[in-house]
């Protein structure tokens, strides 16, 4: 009964979404408060019902109800509980259900936290949100229904691959979906504003918190995926320019541009064209990503095995929403008038440049990802576009942005003075040069450009800190005054500083790991020692060890610094007995806060030794810690009171009404 209740709940959710798609729009057009008021409760209950459906499916997985086909195909009674649960979204149908659940969640959140919006805008936003919901709920019910039942349920499920049961693998999709689907809110705002015919600074103020929220989740989701790949996949790679990875990077780049662009739009009511377009594109790229993963058009280890019919459906949805919104955008172009004035050299100007570079970088990723498909479709030829291409295009486009990053927050609004900015940043610049020199000294013999990369990272980090310090007039006033002033700064200043500092951390991690990592691939006999990044790694031989369902050959390694032992590591070759499937267990050891030693045991050689592969990766953890700091910065900004202003205080509103009566 529970399963069928879930099934019915899904259908009800669609029905509510249908109502939510139509009634509030009519209400907004006719300024009918009752019709508009339908939006909120329907959004809430749409979420409650789809959440109920998701819960029912989860229950079916947890109790291993094999009368549900989805459970049979993707679960197994012997999976540990947590992996039964994560198995719910480890397949196409279940993950689509998660997608629409998160979509409905955002709709409900907008319904709850949008008291400060004009009622017509609120109604339209929730309606557009519902349009997306209707499209995907219909897609699910017609082509990917997780609630299909079997008349003769088997006694066991089909999926017990111990290799795919990992906590990181479990958390990565929900986090990423929160980001992807979060972009739908900005999209809804954009389309709603275009429908209403009113796009102004206030709109930009209202859309910012939602964009920031989606951006934070996207950042975390992408970083988490990258980190998981690093410690699970071989050889410590952390970004592969895999088409599906690219599909998550593109919305992130556009969302970053949108965030910054919306600030200008709010302050100056300028850059309307760009901001609204970004809001549409971010979600469009999200939808494109969904299409690429599920249509079978791309082969990737990420891609769900699915049939072309579904791909065509999603392509239809994609065309409808993207084409429709862009057509609306073009039709309402006259609304996107020139707003406030600002000089080319100003904070606004810097943000325009920021937009430009981010857009071009996104174009690089988009073109690189889609080009092979294009070539195959038009000429039938097959080409590959891999890492070398992206390094040569994405890199040079992002580099100017990184160089100019510290300058932006220092420029004044409307008209900035570059000389004044330079004066304020001279210390950061000087220290960055020192960093370059130090890097050259420490790593002479390494790649020549790398110390400059380190200098760039230092420049960004120091520049980021310099801004709040300068605003608080450190050095110009007594310490106590400065400190007080510092804490009086708006939270968004700290948010900005943190986020930009995080970027610098990431750059340092990337440069350091890329340029200064040490790799050793060799055959080691027990007792041999090899030098690795200043440490000595001794191989002590292997011992067999038994696990619950596997057999290990565990290689023991001792890491020493100078004469002292600093770590004992184990890397194993593992054989799962029931499935006769061999795997490798890698040893990771963090040294000195951010760097890591990585050891992987290979195969036994006839000579009596073992092939071993090891890495010294300096400062590698900064890559993901940087992303984490960026997210924290975003979160701090989100908590700024200015983003919540405009909520009419109830008492005053009632008094005003009474006065008007």
């Amino acid at each position, binding site marked *: 009964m529970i399963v069928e209740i879930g099934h019915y709940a899904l259908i009800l959710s669609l029905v509510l979404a249908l109502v939510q798609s139509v009634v509030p729009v009519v209400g907004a057009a006719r300024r009918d408060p009752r019709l508009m008021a339908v939006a909120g409760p329907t959004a809430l209950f749409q979420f409650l019902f789809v959440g109920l459906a998701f819960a029912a499916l989860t229950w079916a997985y947890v109790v291993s109800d094999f009368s549900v086909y989805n459970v049979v195909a993707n679960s197994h009674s012997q999976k540990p509980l947590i992996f039964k649960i994560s198995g719910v979204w480890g397949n196409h149908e279940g993950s689509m259900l998660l997608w629409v659940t998160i979509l409905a969640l955002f709709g409900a959140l907008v319904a709850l936290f949008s008291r400060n919006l004009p009622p017509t805008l609120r109604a339209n936003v929730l309606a557009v949100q519902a349009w997306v919901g209707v499209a995907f709920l219909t897609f699910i019910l017609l082509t990917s229904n997780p609630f299909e039942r079997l008349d003769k349920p088997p006694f066991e499920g089909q999926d017990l691959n111990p290799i795919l049961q*990992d906590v990181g693998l479990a958390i990565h999709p929900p986090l990423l979906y929160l980001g992807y689907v979060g972009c739908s809110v900005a999209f809804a705002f954009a389309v709603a504003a275009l429908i209403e015919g009113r796009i102004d600074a206030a709109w930009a103020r209202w859309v910012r918190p939602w964009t920031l929220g989606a951006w934070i989740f996207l950042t975390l989701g992408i970083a988490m995926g990258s980190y998981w790949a690093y410690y699970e996949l071989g050889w410590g790679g952390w970004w592969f320019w895999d088409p599906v990875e690219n599909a998550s990077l593109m919305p992130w780049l556009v969302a970053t541009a949108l965030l910054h662009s919306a600030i200008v739009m709010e302050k100056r009511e300028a850059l309307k064209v760009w901001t609204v377009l970004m809001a549409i594109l971010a979600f469009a790229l999200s939808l494109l990503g969904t299409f690429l993963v599920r249509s079978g058009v791309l082969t990737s280890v990420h891609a769900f095995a699915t049939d072309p019919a579904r791909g065509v459906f999603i392509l239809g949805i994609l065309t409808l929403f993207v084409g429709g919104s862009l057509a609306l955008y073009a039709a309402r172009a006259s609304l996107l008038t020139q707003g406030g004035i600002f000089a080319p050299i100003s904070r606004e100007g810097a943000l325009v440049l920021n937009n430009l570079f981010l857009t071009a970088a996104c174009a690089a990723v988009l073109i690189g990802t889609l080009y092979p498909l294009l070539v195959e479709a038009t000429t039938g030829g097959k080409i590959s576009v891999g890492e*070398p291409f992206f390094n040569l295009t994405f890199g040079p486009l992002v580099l100017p942005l990184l160089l100019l990053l510290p300058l932006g927050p220092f420029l004044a609004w409307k008209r900035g003075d570059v000389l004044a900015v330079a004066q304020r940043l001279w210390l950061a610049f000087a220290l960055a040069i020192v960093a370059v020199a130090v890097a050259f000294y420490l790593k002479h013999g390494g790649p020549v450009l790398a110390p400059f990369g380190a200098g760039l990272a230092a420049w960004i980090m120091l520049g980021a800190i310099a801004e709040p310090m300068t605003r608080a007039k450190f050095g110009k006033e007594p310490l106590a005054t400065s400190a007080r002033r510092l804490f009086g700064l708006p939270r968004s200043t700290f948010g900005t500083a943190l986020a930009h500092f995080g970027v610098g951390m990431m750059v340092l991690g990337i440069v350091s790991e890329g340029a200064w990592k040490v790799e050793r691939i060799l055959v080691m006999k027990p007792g041999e020692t090899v030098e690795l990044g200043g440490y000595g790694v001794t191989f002590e031989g292997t011992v067999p060890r038994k696990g619950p369902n596997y057999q290990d050959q565990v290689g023991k390694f001792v890491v020493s610094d100078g004469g002292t032992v600093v770590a004992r590591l184990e890397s194993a070759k593992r054989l799962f007995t029931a499935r006769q499937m061999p795997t490798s267990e890698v040893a990771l050891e963090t040294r000195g806060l951010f760097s890591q030693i990585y050891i992987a045991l290979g195969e036994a050689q006839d000579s009596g030794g073992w092939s071993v592969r090891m890495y010294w990766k300096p400062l590698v953890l900064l890559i993901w810690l940087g992303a984490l700091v960026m997210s924290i910065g975003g979160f701090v900004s989100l908590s700024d009171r200015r983003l919540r202003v405009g909520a009419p205080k109830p008492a005053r509103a009632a008094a005003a009404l009474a006065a008007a009566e």
Partner: protein
Amino acid sequence: MSRLARLLAALVVLLGLAAPAFAVKPDEMLADPAMEARARAISTELRCLVCQNESIDDSNAPLARDLRLLVRERLTAGDSDRQVLDYLVDKYGEFVLLRPVFSLRNALLWLGPFLVLAIGGLVIVSKIRRRPAAPAAAAGGLTADEQRALDELMKNG
């Protein structure tokens, strides 16, 4: 801390390949470090034909190993880097290159992003040019009426 190379094996399982070996095994490596470095560099430019989006330097597939050995063979035979790449393109087509060829056909690919940058830049510059030279009267002072209306509203706030 120990960790599983699970997805790697999953890749292997998904691709139906043999038991996971290692990319670049010690027995493949050349004795001469300079030549080995060239081999590694070239390997990162070549696609493993039986994998999804991996270079032969990273992949564990038997075919990748064969290609790695082939690259080293050609290098030892005296080919330049360019010649080794050409030899492999001859055998397998452009598909084996991870860096697309700089050809007319690929012009859109290589130039596209920079074109976007250029066009965007031009649009911005033209907007700046078209702007009135001085911040016009639009930002000028408010009229008396406007000022009065403003004061009313601010009071009611």
